[in-house]
Structures are given as C-alpha cells and as structure tokens.
C-alpha cells in the first residue's frame, strides 16, 4: 500500500480551499486547450483580422496591399454590375443546389433508412460513403470527361436533338455542384432519420393520422436537425465553389470562388480580393447563425 502512504497531510474542508480546487481544475482545462488555442489564434484569428484590415488598403503595381493609403475603394467596387452579376449567379446556383440536393437527397435517405432490410442497409450506406470519401477533384473531373465534346453525353444530346455541347455552360457547373455535394446532404439526413424514435410515428398513426400526415407532422419536424446540417454542408461550399466552376465552367460562368482567386493571380488586386472574401464570410456567418437559431444543434 505504498501508493496510499505517500501523501501530503490534509486538512478539513472549507470554502476557500474548495474555490482553490475549482480554479486548479479550470487551469487544467485551459492547459489542454492551449496548444490548439495558440495555433488557431495565430493561424486563423489573426489572418482573419489581416483580411479585414487589408480590405481597406490600396494596391501596389503587383497587386499586393500597401500599408497606408486606406480607403473604401474595394468595398465601393462591390456594387459594380459585374460583381453583382457574379454574386447573384453564385447565390442562385448555391440555393438551387441546396434545394435540389434536399429534394433528391431526403427521399433517398428516407428510402435507405426505412425501405431497405436492415441487413442491406449497411451495404447501401457503404455505397453512399464511397463517393463521399472519394477525392472531390476526381469526381468533378469525371463530369469533365462525360460532358466532353467527344463524350457520351454530347453524343446522346445530339442524337436526340435535346442539347448540344454542355461543357463550359451554367448547367454543366450546376450538374457538377449537384454531383459533388449530394453525399454531403444525404449523410446528415440519413443520420437524423435513422435515429428517429419510430414509436412516435406509430403513435401518430394510432391517433388516426394518415401516412402523409404522420410524415409531415412527426417525421419531418424530428428530422429537422439533419435537414439543417445537410443544408449548411451543401450551401456554404457551393457558394464558395472554386474547383467545379473552374473545371466545368467557362468565362461566362465565373462564380465568386474563381473570381476571388483571380484577384490574387492574374487580377492583381489583393485588397479587392480581401474585401470580397470578407463579405462572403460575413454573409455565410449570418446565414449559419440564422439557420442554427431556427432549430439546429451541433454539426
């Protein structure tokens, strides 16, 4: 029992000592968080501040921000028609993508959760997980191949006379976004529906609700956290999409993502790029907070 014999003499308890031990525990908690805290402050919070600061800077000939010469030029440019077109296009595509993903994804998740035998369910889930874990670039590239002018889709379109060359058009970008982010909608939805207490639905049926009513009044509201999580996971990346419009779109389908990156490469206007990034971030934060308040929990 040597472990129990080595100990410092202990006195009876009193409130000051209790307060001390509470403080000691608090210190331990902070200590655990400290490495990540310092890292994120240095590589996240401060960079965020820099973006905000430099959005008010003026640019040098290489496009880099110049300290001093503070102005609101970058923000003034935000209301130019070009920007507004791009922003509107991005917003439209992101919203459309989120809605379509929801309309296709919800029945899909529901189908896997309720209509498949529980033995099959795991296999079906694996089949959804594989695209989810696959490299995003590769999956987007697959459509580049499919929509190529020598490819099967164009061939089919020309044969039926329904469509011509689809690449580098807005529909192509949309298909790419839908394809890219559908798994991001399905998985949180499936998790929420799977976890549902089905005895509640049974109870509704028992109280004379039709199938549709039971769905609308019980299943749907209870799966709301999944709907919110899935929507956020689709909307935010869609709004900031870069790879998809870059590969599948053309000059006429520039979205916010590419436009921002251009400012740091050929566009040579870092302060403007900073302003754009900041605005898009602010918009998303507001959307997220608003959406969370209306009934989401944690991601």
């Amino acid at each position, binding site marked *: 029992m040597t472990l129990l014999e080595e100990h410092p003499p202990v006195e009876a308890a009193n409130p000051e000592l209790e307060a001390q031990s509470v403080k000691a525990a608090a210190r331990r908690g902070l200590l*655990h968080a400290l490495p990540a805290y310092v890292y994120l402050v240095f590589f996240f919070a401060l960079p965020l501040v820099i973006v905000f600061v430099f959005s008010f800077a003026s640019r040098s000939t290489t496009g880099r921000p110049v300290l001093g010469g503070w102005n609101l030029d970058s923000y003034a440019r935000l209301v130019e028609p070009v920007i507004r077109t791009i922003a509107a296009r991005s917003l439209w595509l992101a919203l459309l993508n989120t809605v379509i993903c929801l309309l296709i994804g919800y029945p899909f998740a529901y189908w896997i959760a*309720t209509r498949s035998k529980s033995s099959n369910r795991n296999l079906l889930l694996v089949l959804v997980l594989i695209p989810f874990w696959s490299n995003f670039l*590769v999956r987007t*590239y697959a459509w*580049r191949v499919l929509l190529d002018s020598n490819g099967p889709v164009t061939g089919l379109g020309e044969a039926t006379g329904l469509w011509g060359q689809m690449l580098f058009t807005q529909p192509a970008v949309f298909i790419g976004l839908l394809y890219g982010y559908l798994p991001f909608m399905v998985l949180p939805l499936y998790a929420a529906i799977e976890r549902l207490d089905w005895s509640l639905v049974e109870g509704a049926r028992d109280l004379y609700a039709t199938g549709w009513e039971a769905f609308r009044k019980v299943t749907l509201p209870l799966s709301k956290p999944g709907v919110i999580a899935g929507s956020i996971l689709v909307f935010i990346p869609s709004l900031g999409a870069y790879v998809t419009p870059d590969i599948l779109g053309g000059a006429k389908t520039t979205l916010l993502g590419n436009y921002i*990156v251009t400012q740091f490469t050929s566009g040579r206007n870092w302060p403007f790029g900073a302003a754009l990034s900041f605005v898009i971030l602010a918009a998303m934060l507001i959307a997220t907070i608003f959406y969370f308040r209306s009934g989401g929990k944690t991601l």
Partner: protein
Amino acid sequence: MTGREGTATGGWVDRVLGINGWFVFLFLYAPIMVLVLYSFSGDRNVGTWGGFSMEWYERMFANDALMRSLRNSLVVALISTVVSTVLGTAAAIALERYRRWATRGAFDALMYLPVIIPDVTMAVMLLMWFTTIGWSLSLNTIMLSHIAFNISFVAIVVRARLANMDPALDEAAADLYANRWRTFRRVTLPVIMPGVMGGALLALTLSLDDVVVTSLVQGPGATTLPVYVFGLIKRDVTPEINAVSTLMLAASMVLVMVSLVLQRRGESEQTR
C-alpha cells in the same frame, strides 16, 4: 409490422422512393465508372473504346513531376494529420471534460469557424497572413495551413465520442488508484480511440483532397497531387488523368473500409 418498417404502405409512394433511390445510385456511380473504364482504353478520345491498354498507367508512373507531387501530398497529409489529431484531441478534452474555464465560450466558437468557413476565404486569409509576416511559401506553409483547418474537424469527431463515453469510467479509474496520466493512457484514450482514429482519417482525407487552400499558399516548385492534377486538367484533358483518378478512387475506397472497421470496433465494445 411495427417501427420504421410500418411506414411502408406498399403503394405508389414505395415505388417512387425505390425508383429515386436506384436513380441516385446510378447518378453517383456512372461518372466514376466511366472514368475507370476509360483509364484502360487505348484511345485518347473518350467517345471511342480503343481496346484494353495500360499505356496511361505506365505514362503516369513515368511522370516525375506527378510522382514528386504524390510524395509531397503524402508527407503533408501525414504530418498535418498527426499534429492536428494531437491538438484536436486535447482541445476536445478541454471542451468536453472541463466545463468552466476562462474564455471557454470564445474558444468553442473559434473551433467551429474553420468548419463553416468557405475554403476560398481560408485560402485568401492564409496567403495574406504569410506574406504579411514575411514567411516564404513552401511545403511548410501548406502543412501549416492544413493543420489550421484540420484541428477543428478532429475536435468535432473526438468530442462526439467523448460525449458518448460514461464519465464514470474516468472516476472508476481514479477510484482504483490511477493518477491522471495513467487514467488517460489506460482508460480514456483507449475508449475514445475510435473517435481519435476517425478524426485522424477525416483529417487525412481533407488534406489529401485539398485544392484551393494549397494552390494559394504553395511555393514555386513544390506542389501536391490534387493541385498538380488540377493544373493538368486545365491545360489539357489527357487519359493519364483518368489513370491517376482511378488510383485515387481506389485509395478512397481503402479509406472507407478502414473507417468502417473502426466504427464497427467502437460499437462492439460499448455496453451503453
């Protein structure tokens, strides 16, 4: 029939759900299957099948720049995964097991930001920051950037696992004479290990996947595989890319299997 199976009415709703389901699977897999198929095609054109050929795979392996970018990707992914897993796990413990310390709320919010921020903004932030503090862009800046967004993802996964863990387990360990370090090493860590591994896997995938952040913070000469392939795609679509893509898909499938094994093992041991 009771439970979830009781929602099946046998009517047209079931049929519509089924059709939608199979259609989605077709939609998800057709493009990648075409890709895989044509990586073995002898013809440059995607429209025509040129007979079975491994030509594109041979060319891919002979491409020095590509191989170098693959090596870079693995190095960056490995190091950033290890660092972000350690930091993220510690942060998760700080948030989940210690409820009252100064600025805990602010830290919680700070941890969530990298998850909801669009990666374009993140890329811009980091690029401007590195140039401001005068760090030259290189493989190191890529690594540092990946760690920056991965810490939060690891923390989320580990937190979920921690929240699910009976807090009495740590108390039992202390009751049985374990000090804090031994409690962590022999009880807490093994129990949350599926979460830690899951978080590490997620960090690995996000790092290997990343295009936007890497392309802005990389220096001349050192690039990662996805960014290299991205450059190839924008220049010209060659079937070599199909070959690379197929191998990357195969790697993803391995990752899926690993994540499933981890999940299965985590569930089997739980008594709650």
